[in-house]
């Protein structure tokens, strides 16, 4: 079975048809996708701005990172699950969209970023209270760049079709 026929099968499932053709379901799921950016994106940006030393300087790094961590994970889970539902609704369109593949490539880089910097930065907040390291600043700058890239490529998907 090749990939296109697999995606055609996805589009033929009841869930895919319901999201794609229902008048309300698609915008509601899209609304959740966007709302998770609105409600949890602020914590992601503030975490990275704190690591750069630009924001919330009166709070210690560990205060900021530890208190945002659970919320950021919840937000990530929400944005990924709503994104999966949106993708399930029109996989063929996304398969042919260059911006979608750029976005997926950036998402892979987000995973690599987490693996590379988790130990030294994001789960090492207490040590950073003594002073920000170049590694922490690099992690924050890359995180913000990846995040901006995800927004731009995500938005461009709608203009590819």
């Amino acid at each position, binding site marked *: 079975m090749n990939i296109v026929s697999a995606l055609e099968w996805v589009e033929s499932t009841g869930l895919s048809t319901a999201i794609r053709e229902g008048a309300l379901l698609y915008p509601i799921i899209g609304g959740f996708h966007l709302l998770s950016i609105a409600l949890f*994106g602020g914590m992601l*940006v503030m975490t990275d701005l704190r690591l750069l030393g630009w924001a919330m300087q009166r709070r210690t790094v560990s205060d900021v990172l530890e208190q945002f961590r659970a919320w950021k994970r919840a937000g990530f889970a929400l944005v990924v699950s709503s994104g999966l539902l949106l993708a399930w609704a029109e996989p063929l369109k996304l398969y042919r969209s260059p911006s979608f593949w750029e976005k997926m490539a950036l998402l892979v880089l987000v995973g690599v970023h987490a693996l590379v910097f988790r130990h030294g930065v994001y789960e090492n907040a207490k040590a950073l209270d003594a002073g920000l390291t170049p590694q922490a600043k690099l992690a924050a700058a890359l995180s913000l760049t990846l995040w901006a890239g995800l927004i731009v490529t995500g938005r461009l998907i709608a203009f590819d079709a």
Partner: protein
Amino acid sequence: MPTGSFFEWLTKTPWAKAMNGPEWAFPVVESLHFMGLALSVGTIAIVDLRLLGIAMRRQSASELAADLDKWTWIGLALMLITGPLMFSADAVNYHYNPAFQFKMVCLLLALVFYFTLHRYATRSTTQSLLANLAGAVSLALWICVVAGGRMIAFV
């Protein structure tokens, strides 16, 4: 000047023409709008969750509000530049779009609330019913703004 012709005039302004010019213009401005969204609504939401007593409990709401104020303003500025730019690109249609009208009513309420009762509630140093209420109302209003915005493309 009747309002209809004002919106038609808007669509003929140089900035509206720029928005309708190269095909990357609209998505790029829209992306900046989303980044402003995370910065403005995202930082207000942090204070709201603190007012509700469920996030950032090691700091008081007033400390957080003072920390985040500058970033909220940068986000709001970004929103209020990119939003009208997108509006100008297709002003007449947006003007008649019910989702857009809903969004603007909610936005007005959310901003007025933010600069009045929300401000007042964050000044109080104790966890009170007023603080909980202010956090919940603020979150609800901003969620309506975002949801209304998302619906514009679908009605």
